[in-house]
């Protein structure tokens, strides 16, 4: 439009060169993003080794024990079982992060969702597919509402989402404690202990044991959770929604620059509310593996999955594949920490130290990578400018 000759010149010849340059540029970005977590992992290994040596243990022995342990099929199954809810929780947190909303409330959201889903599942008898669907949908709706509540407080009352979700975590725990006690008082749990009515066989998500059985035999009560499939679906949907839909674009734009997004037609309140609803809905699925495994909600229900999900999302840079790596790493550390106690090669607490070091170094690593990328890009752009003007 500025000058037709410019259009003609730059249309034909540079096109090929540009696509190659673009591909290079993308490859470089991917390599750079991988550099941070890898570097952090290596660094944390070194740091842990130093701690172990200081504590009088042999780091190589400890590592050998952990890896040996992890080579067993049942440990690998257990790792995936542990990684699955962490992954879902990580995605739930990431949805908020992408919009600069710090949803600390996955913890409360998944617990509320789990108890209601278990209650509904135990109260009805339906054909299998419907029964399972009802339970999962209940979980998502309850989680979504609990997250949405924080969302409404944020958009309509200006309550900071961090405060709102933390408070709602407390409320959720209180509500659950009260519900469990009421059910207890009603006496419908005498034979089976405190908790919700067990879900019939028809409402339980089938396990995926056929996969590990391809590689060997599982022990009697060992199962690969069917929630793995749901987690993968969640990951794929998250990726598509975020990167391939206008909604996802709006979400990311709001997170990157709320003012610009607003001027670009993205309604800020609606997006914040949508993000909290979705984050909560995904969060609602976090506890379902446990529910299907135990067939009911009991007071020993697993905790801290929400908070660990935040760590995993951070580790994976809110990227669906990255979160999976983070969840598996966390699960690996979880699953192999027990063996350290058995073999006495190292204190179990070394795992917590490693996690802490990994998180810190990853956060630092990402920042370093961001700066490096920024510098190289500016340099390349400047070079291009010089080339074009001279």
């Amino acid at each position, binding site marked *: *439009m*500025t*000058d037709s000759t*410019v*259009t003609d010149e*730059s*249309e034909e010849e540079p*096109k090929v060169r*540009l696509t190659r*340059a*673009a591909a290079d*540029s*993308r490859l470089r*970005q991917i390599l750079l993003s991988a550099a941070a977590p890898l570097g952090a992992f290596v660094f944390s290994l070194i740091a842990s080794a130093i701690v172990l040596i200081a504590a009088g243990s042999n780091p190589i022995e400890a590592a050998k024990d952990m890896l040996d342990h992890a080579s067993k099929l049942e440990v690998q199954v257990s790792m995936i079982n542990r990684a699955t809810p962490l992954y879902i929780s990580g995605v739930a947190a990431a949805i908020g992060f992408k919009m600069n909303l710090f949803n600390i409330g996955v913890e409360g959201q998944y617990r509320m969702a789990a108890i209601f889903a278990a209650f509904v599942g135990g109260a009805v008898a339906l054909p299998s597919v419907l029964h399972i669907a009802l339970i999962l949908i209940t979980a998502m709706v309850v989680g979504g509402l609990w997250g949405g509540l924080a969302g409404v407080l944020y958009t309509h009352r200006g309550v900071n989402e961090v405060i709102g979700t933390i408070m709602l975590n407390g409320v959720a725990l209180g509500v659950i404690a009260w519900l469990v006690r009421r059910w207890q008082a009603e006496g419908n749990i005498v034979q089976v202990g405190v908790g919700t009515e067990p879900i019939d066989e028809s409402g339980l998500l089938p396990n995926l044991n056929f996969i590990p059985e391809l590689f060997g035999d599982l022990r009697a009560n060992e199962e690969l959770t069917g929630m793995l499939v749901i987690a993968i679906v969640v990951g794929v949907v998250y990726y598509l929604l975020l*990167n*391939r*839909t*206008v*909604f*996802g*674009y*709006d979400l*990311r*734009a709001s997170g*990157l*620059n709320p*003012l*610009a*997004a*607003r*001027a*670009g*037609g*993205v*309604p800020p309140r609606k997006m914040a509310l949508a993000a909290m609803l979705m984050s909560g809905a995904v969060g609602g699925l976090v506890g379902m593996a446990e529910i299907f495994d135990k067939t009911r909600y009991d007071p020993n229900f697993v905790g801290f999955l929400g908070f660990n999900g935040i760590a995993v999302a951070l580790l994976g840079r809110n990227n669906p594949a990255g979160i999976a790596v983070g969840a598996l790493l966390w699960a690996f550390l979880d699953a192999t920490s027990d063996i350290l106690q058995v073999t006495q090669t190292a204190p179990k607490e070394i795992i917590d130290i490693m996690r802490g070091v990994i998180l810190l170094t990853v956060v630092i690593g990402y920042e370093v990578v961001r700066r490096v*990328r*920024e*510098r*190289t*890009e*500016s*340099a*390349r*752009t*400047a*070079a*291009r*400018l*010089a080339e*074009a*003007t*001279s």
Partner: protein
Amino acid sequence: MTLAIELTGITKRFPGVVANDNVSLAVAPGEIHAVCGENGAGKSTLMKILFGMQSPDEGTMRIHGEEVRFSSPADAIERGIGMVHQHFMLAGQLTVLENVILGTEPVASLGRIDFKAAEAHLLEVGEAYGLDVDPHDLIETLEVGERQRVEIIKVLYRGAQILILDEPTAVLVPHEVDELFRNMRELKAAGETILFIDHKLEEVLQIADTITVLRQGRTVATVKPADVSTGDLAEMMVGSELPTPQTSRSTVTDKTALSIRGLTVLDEDDRPVLNDVSLEVHRGEVVGLAGVEGNGQTEFVGAIIGTEDVEAGSIRLLGEEIAHSTVRRRRNSGIGYVPQDRQEEGLLLFAPLWENAALGHQTRKPFANGRWFDRFGARERTEAIRSWFDVRTPDIEVTANSLSGGNQQKLIVGREMAAEPKVLIAAHPTRGIDIGAQAAVWDDIRAARADGMGTLLISADLEELIGLSDTIVVIHKGELTATLDPATITPRELGSYMTGSEQDDAETPDGPGPAAAPETATGPKSQGDPASGDAGEPQ
């Protein structure tokens, strides 16, 4: 005679680019020396080197004949060099005195700040240089020009004999510029050496004793103002014959593109920041909105694009009422928007260019396919914007952050123009970009105007307003106070309308019908008009 500043063979390389290439600069003591050049010509780098913020890769620096090597601004201050940055570094909640002594507080017994001594010294400095300030005024109550004076005093207070002023006039209205120049002359009379960066060539000729022009990191020429015209300077800066904007005939039609009636917008305290404003923009017309910043322009723009709540009044786009529509609805029905702060409101700095090109258009083709975001279409369109609007970048995968300011602006203007808006709201579309990019943006607006686009142009650059507009309206304290004919108005007159010192009684603000819309026979910068004479004056 010993030179105050003597830079020889200064070279500064950044990865992939040479910012300063064998630059030499000689400044005599007690002179006002201007440094001109396009954005990216290396002026800022050179000033940063002189102020110790960056160290040169090659070359020598002499201050008052003595060779120096600065490793930080503290070293430069030590040598009597002071710098006034374009963006003021003042704490609004503190008084003038507190700001001036910040970091160099004189200490009395028991670690108390000796305000008495400080005030005495401050008044002494003010008197010596003829700079008039009240030490007890709060910074936030001061006008821009006064704040700048505080910045200058701050530097003098620290004993600077050499002042570096980075685009000091960029933020000032005409009468403040006069005041600044008066101050600069007094400083000069008191023996100070002043080095200043400026884009506005008319001003440079008015105040400078010597002018050094940089282009692409090299010194092009050092001249005396008496020997050159603004046109000569502009040509030295750009390096070739300036792009001459074609004489643009009026393309104003009688079809209303945007009609605003009785628009009222309230601030948080329910006071009107925009009071009963009425305005018509016709197809093919550029309406310039002139006003000192903070008189309701931001709210006006916000009300039109939909980010401000409209209290009363109507906004019609091609007859359709949009005063209470969502931003997206308005953007999709044909309102293009070039925001005043490109980084704050226009870009996703850490997203790739092709995602930036979609912003504001993400629900429409080629960026969207129903509810799906079309990454292929977006990339294709971005490549097109890149070549049509000459956005200089290695590829469209880089983040917007890595582009220079001018190229960021070309990207924004490009993405709006590519969507073929019916009405364009352009707020300061050429602020802080170089002459080349500026001319490109004007051309784009003029081309779209010829195709029937209506434009509301908000600008602090009065020559741009006069040169580009078919009609100029003046906004003052939230009301439109005058409708002016750009063919007959001078920047000076316009300036006095803007400050409210002159009122226009002849014309009502809401009646610039097509017949009243004047023919603008000249391009931007009123090419032949000696009163305007900015960068765009061709030879």
